[in-house]
């Protein structure tokens, strides 16, 4: 093998630092906005203030690094646009994710009032069946919110019957049930615009829904799209930092590949000289 190859632990150290550094000190490397992200942004941006919107959190802590930043960015955008947000979850752990994000955002937006500006309806089993049932009446599926409070007592739910009263549906999805089910019912049946975000791994199977029929109105796929969204709303945060870390780590890997090749050719030349 090569006469002098780098101790692999140097690679590990560089990767560790290359990821840690931008997380603490956000660099903000240039990010190019892709069409799918722009479409999702436009949908939220063009929805008038006071509209009721539905957010579904269909992921668990395992997908947090990718989905949490985009969820936070999109919810933040909706808050800025003064939309009335109804949260639900198709995954049991999704409720925690909602709580986590609203805990952070309500300190930044102290004017937000629970029950008026947003409500957390919690988790329901059933996936697509639940989505279908919500098409008839939210109340039959969610008689109470996540804390057990009757939703009829919450001002935000006044006159909110079903999808007809919702301006758009946004799902953050790490698998099934998730955004695909929302498309199949929310858009295909009830003709509501559906948007949202997925992990990079599941993107190829969901992207085909962003088509001429607008089954999906844009889609955020992976951390990169989340960083793009943060750029669009002008609030660089977790995803931008994460994307910096990604870029730096990739750069480090590529540099090491180059070094490896230089070493290899040098050794080969030396052998040739002998």
């Amino acid at each position: 093998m090569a006469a002098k190859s780098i101790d692999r632990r140097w690679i590990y150290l560089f990767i560790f630092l290359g990821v840690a550094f931008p997380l603490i000190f956000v660099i903000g490397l240039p990010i190019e906005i892709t069409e799918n992200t722009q479409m999702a942004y436009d949908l939220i941006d063009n929805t008038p203030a006071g509209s009721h919107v539905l957010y579904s959190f269909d992921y668990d802590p395992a997908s947090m690094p990718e989905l949490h930043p985009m969820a936070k960015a999109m919810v933040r955008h909706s808050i800025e646009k003064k939309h009335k947000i109804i949260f639900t979850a198709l995954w049991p752990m999704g409720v925690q994710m909602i709580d986590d994000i609203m805990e952070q955002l309500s300190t930044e937006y102290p004017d937000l009032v629970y029950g008026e500006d947003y409500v957390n309806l919690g988790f329901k089993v059933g996936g697509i069946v639940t989505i279908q049932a919500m098409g008839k009446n939210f109340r039959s599926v969610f008689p109470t919110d996540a804390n057990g409070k009757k939703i009829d007592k919450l001002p935000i739910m006044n006159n909110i019957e079903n999808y007809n009263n919702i301006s758009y549906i946004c799902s953050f999805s790490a698998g099934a049930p998730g955004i695909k089910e929302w498309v199949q019912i929310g858009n295909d049946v009830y003709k509501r615009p559906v948007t949202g975000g997925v992990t990079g791994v599941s993107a190829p199977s969901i992207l085909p829904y962003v088509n001429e029929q607008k089954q999906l109105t844009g889609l955020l796929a992976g951390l990169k799209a989340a960083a793009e969204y943060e750029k669009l709303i002008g609030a660089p945060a977790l995803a931008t930092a994460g994307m910096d870390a990604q870029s730096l780590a990739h750069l480090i890997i590529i540099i090491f590949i180059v070094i490896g090749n230089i070493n290899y050719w040098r050794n080969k030349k030396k052998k040739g000289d002998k």
Partner: protein
Amino acid sequence: MKRTLPLILAMITGFIVLISDFIPHWPFGMITSEIEKWFLIISGFALILGQINLIKVNVNKIRFKAEGWQYFIITIASFAIMVLFGALWGTQSNVGLLGNGTKIVEVIGSKPFDYLFDNVYQHLQATMFSLLAFFIASAAYRAFIARTPESNLLLIAAILVMLGNTSLGSFLTGWLPENLDFLHLPNVSQFIMKYPTTAGQRAIMIGAGLGLIGSSLRIILGIERSYLGGN
């Protein structure tokens, strides 16, 4: 008899499963899903074999004072603690032998089983998984060397996709004019993933699928019988 009977049984079972897929009529229509449930139950019983083996092997190591035997006490202890906690107070959604341990939950915030799961097990799992970030770098450094036409392709495809996936790619080729847009690195990376990569993966899937079908048939016909022990 101790070998032939299981083989005959295997052949009959295999053929029934094969034909049942084409027959929706009762009882064939439900065989596959029913048997998958059976698999879970039988493997549930078998789990005990694994646990007994785990304890036995570790006890042997401790007893014969194998190198580093002290560590194996930890294995057995943590296994016992987890099983005990789970059995006594249950898990988040299940009641244990001593009920829900409400008093303990008041003190530590969750059931002991879940506490260990959330604060120890999950972190161990996530960290072990994250080691891949380091290993992917060291493997790339070592393997992506331009030696042969094959390794060149491996190297070039990997680098193009890596560049295209991050801000680096859009940064490097963002200046390209519109009619050269197809050379823009994010587009190049997408192109590679969508066409040649799909082709390679499909070839593997078709080949592996056929290999798997051949092996399945050999097992059902009893030609391949090493799983019963020896040949």
